[in-house]
């Protein structure tokens, strides 16, 4: 069962219309997409004249974390697109690239600042419990 076809319509691209007539150049960088909350330039719809407010990292740690969060965001938004367009090879290649980069950066970050997921809690101390947790804000520093 595991390796059977997923039962998808082979001509699915004829069925799920890309309502934006999207081209791949339409896809923003993780950082640009993250700030806007949208990886797709043609879908981006700001409210009135309010686009987005910049994020300023206040430490090396925050800078690293923002990079990870931006990659996480890119992966998530491409994920939703690929759910409906799994045969788009270019977007899938982009997705895989971000997954690799995310993995690398999470490994680096966890080594220095502690785990972001439980399974990275492998040092000499059980530091999974260490504050700050995502809902804390300590001294104006953006959590974690």
């Amino acid at each position, binding site marked *: 069962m595991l390796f059977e076809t997923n039962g998808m319509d082979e001509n699915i691209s004829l069925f*799920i219309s890309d309502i934006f007539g999207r081209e791949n150049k339409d896809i923003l960088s993780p950082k640009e997409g993250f700030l806007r909350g*949208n990886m797709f330039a043609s879908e*981006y719809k700001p*409210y009135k004249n*309010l686009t987005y407010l910049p994020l300023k990292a206040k430490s090396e740690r925050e800078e690293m974390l923002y990079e990870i969060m931006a990659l996480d965001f890119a992966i998530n938004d491409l994920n939703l697109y690929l*759910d409906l367009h799994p045969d788009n090879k270019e977007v899938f290649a982009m997705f895989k690239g971000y997954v690799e980069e995310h993995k690398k950066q999470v490994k680096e970050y966890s080594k220095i600042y502690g785990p972001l997921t439980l399974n990275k809690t492998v040092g000499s101390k059980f530091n999974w419990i260490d504050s700050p947790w995502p809902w804390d804000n300590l001294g104006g520093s953006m959590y974690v």
Partner: protein
Amino acid sequence: MFKYVKHTNFPVNIRKKDLRMAKYLVTQFGGSNGELAAALRYFSQKFNMPDDYGKALLNDIATEELGHCEMIATMVHQLTKDATKKEMEEAGLGSHYAEHGKGVYPTDANGVPFTVTYFAVTGDVLADISEDMAAEQKARAVYENLIDLTEDEDVLRVLLFLRQREVVHFNRFKELYEYYQKKGY
């Protein structure tokens, strides 16, 4: 299954206490158009999706919305955590304090607790997904009302991000809806 990642979807760091805004904002956690209703709606509907497109999309958006619940609750917590009892009372949060202290509880802006009757699961693919599309539009509209009600950049930054996610989700649901319609559901 679910596993926790120890960061929010987008940075939330509200430095200024603002009980008035907290009272309004909480509706996007526990109100009829809020993130908890969205997460539970898609989570529950996914079991009846007829193919892999619907299963994947509803599953993945439900998961993202759960992260958005955490972001809204985080904002409410950060806006209220330094408040005194007197300040809570003056901001119309005296009854909240009586029931919940300074805890974060899923209610709408009037303090009405969350209820699952805010969403439907009909067993009908087109009915469910058109509700999902409407839900995204309603959440976008409420985010715009909330954006109009604040000038705090720390709050605004997050609201603009979350509002944009509603735009994206609506588009994905619309694509899925049109596909199922063509398939003859």
